[in-house]
């Protein structure tokens, strides 16, 4: 008993789950969608993913080094941002665009607002919207030589539905359609989603309510057509967005009721943007707007303390 004992306030034990575990679980959950994208669109898309992740991690390192802050690149959050951004890119995007997006996501959206946990928008989505507005031509070109889609024939199912054309539902579920690298295969995305649910990384509350609201919205306002409704759910970035982006801890409400309201809000916004917006897709903008409402939703939905429900 010569050594000094540690003294601290209780509790003296900690759960095994760390921020790092959670981040890498999200990254692992995106692997099926990434692999499908690479297999379908070709090896170049692997390069896009690697370059985007590298841009995110490097810009975080350089910023923190320059600002004399602790280096936090090993926590996995920059990797997740990079993967989400990359999977939101068209398959033949010039590399400099996602790289620029990665730098924007980390420096402008995340670090300028105080780093991990402080960003008011999902960094990857904010960067995607920045790129969509700035480089609309590149970002909306879903042609893929390997898949045999050019810029003319390669209309995404959402664009085709907008134009009143029929779409192939089975191809959408497997992913044999034009689109961004990671959003095309519903099956691959759901494998990742189940992984996150089983590992209790996310709760099903936001994604299910979000997707459900979109379904109800497009059914009511899209002509009471069941096939059309299912196609809308499987098309575009809804599944990807609902499970991987709307569930982002930092930018979604923590209260149960708040999560329900948030899911409904995202669903309604997505429905409006898709049915009547300027572009056939609206998931990214819906989530970004939802992010901005998050603090207000949270404040309005604080739970009543145990034993004080009546007051």
């Amino acid at each position, binding site marked *: 008993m010569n050594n000094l004992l540690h003294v601290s306030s209780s*509790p*003296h034990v900690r759960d095994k789950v760390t921020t790092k575990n959670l981040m890498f679980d999200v990254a692992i959950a995106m692997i099926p969608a990434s692999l499908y994208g690479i297999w379908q669109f070709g090896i170049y898309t692997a390069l896009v993913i690697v370059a985007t992740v590298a841009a995110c991690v490097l810009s975080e390192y350089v910023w923190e080094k320059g600002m004399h802050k602790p280096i936090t690149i090993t926590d996995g959050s920059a990797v997740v941002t990079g993967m989400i951004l990359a999977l939101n890119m068209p398959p033949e995007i010039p590399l400099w665009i996602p790289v620029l997006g990665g730098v924007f996501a980390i420096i402008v959206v995340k670090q300028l607002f105080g780093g991990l946990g402080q960003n008011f928008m999902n960094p990857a989505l904010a960067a995607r919207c920045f790129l969509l507005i700035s480089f609309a031509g590149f970002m909306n070109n879903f042609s893929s030589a390997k898949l045999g889609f050019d810029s003319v024939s390669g209309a995404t199912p959402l664009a085709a539905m907008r134009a009143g054309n029929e779409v192939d539902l089975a191809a959408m579920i497997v992913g044999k359609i034009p689109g961004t690298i990671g959003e095309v295969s519903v099956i691959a995305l759901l494998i990742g989603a189940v992984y996150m649910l089983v590992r209790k990384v996310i709760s099903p509350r936001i994604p299910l309510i979000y997707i459900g609201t979109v379904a109800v919205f497009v059914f009511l306002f899209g002509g009471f057509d069941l096939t059309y409704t299912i196609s809308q759910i499987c098309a575009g970035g809804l599944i990807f967005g609902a499970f991987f982006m709307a569930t982002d801890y930092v930018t979604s409400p923590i209260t149960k009721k708040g999560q329900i309201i948030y899911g409904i809000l995202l669903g309604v916004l997505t429905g409006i943007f898709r049915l009547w917006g300027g572009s056939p897709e609206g998931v990214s903008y819906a989530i970004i707007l939802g992010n901005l409402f998050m603090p207000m939703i949270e404040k309005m939905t604080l739970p009543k303390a145990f*034993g004080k429900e009546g007051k």
Partner: protein
Amino acid sequence: MGLATFKGGVHPYEGKELSASKPVQMLMPKGELVFPLSQHIGAPANPLVKKGDQVLAGQIIAEAGGFISANVICSVSGTVKAVEPRRVANGAMVNSIVVENDGEYRTIEGLGSDRDYTALSKEEIRQIVKDAGIVGLGGAGFPTHVKLTPKEDAKIDYVIVNGAECEPYLTSDYRLMLEEPEKLIGGLKVVLQLFENAKGVIGIEDNKPEAIAKLTELVKNEPKISVCPLKTKYPQGGERSLIYAVTGRKVNSSMLPADAGCIVDNVDTVISIYMAVCKTTPLMRKIITVTGDAVAEPQNFHVKLGTNYEEILEAAGGFKTEPEKIINGGPMMGQAMFDLHVPVMKNSSALTCMSKDEVAASAPTPCIRCGRCVSVCPSNIVPVLMMKAAERNDAESFEKLNGMECVECGSCAFICPAKRPLTQAFKEMRKVVAANRRKK
């Protein structure tokens, strides 16, 4: 329908297998015994003896210093060596009566004689409990005679015995339920005599099936007493969680359990009531679990109050590895100790010795708002936002966020993936808010 429980909670490593199967061993003290005058919530007791006095086991050596206070009983016979400040387990210096043990264990007259509780009036029972120095032995140390004196006896319809023992590593209540179940039921019957409209419920977590089986068997012919198995989940033994699990009633920080018609007492408290009322034996002992991966032979001891912790550790074979952290109590709510040269008090329950300190091993990182703290909080409040208020030292916001409903159970800090010291910050803020309230 699952087992009775509450919303929220966590599942820390239980660690009970280290000592659960070890029968309680009697440990006789060697040297001096120290009796702090403040081993309970409320006013310190006033000493009735001075240096040089001869004292006997069972003698009241300090009497309650107010309504919310408790007597201190000598656990051995010998000579009063000093009345002076001594260090206690939480690190404070507390005025204490120091007794040199003569090793003869001479007792006061009548100690241990049988008494028929059914012939006693309510007032007599309460007076016996008060004289015996009994306080809540689960750790809170609230004087039991005060708890047993609610505004209206007739409004109490539940007497709940807390046998949850949800704190990891602790096995003392479990051993008592297995080894002295008749005393437990006897004590409960004494309490039920005070509350004519009440039924007795013994709540036990389902990780103690032997205790549940044994007590269920023993109460099968007791119409007013039942055993309620509880889901194993921390903090199931928290008073508010337990009341909710057993009765479905909710108690908040501005209520007493009696406001919800409940009296809750820990297993050891109820046994102590039995001993005082039926066996004329005041509170002189505690069951202490010595445990943790740094202890050579983890086990449970029957210890005389005032015994030095160092003697108990020695009896458990000392350390097998160098400990990094030693806790008075269990890892969720116990206090870290820097000195083992302190006495066993009424609210002592365990000595948990850890070879590794998990807290020091994991540095806090930024909050990612994952919401885990919100989902585990048994008080249904929002630790993540309370922490932001605490970081700003904003007592007003903290209070508005219902920070005073926090029971300091530690679930939020346990579950936090960013390893943030949530509970620790809340304890500080709650002191600030309480101090501000007193000023008003």
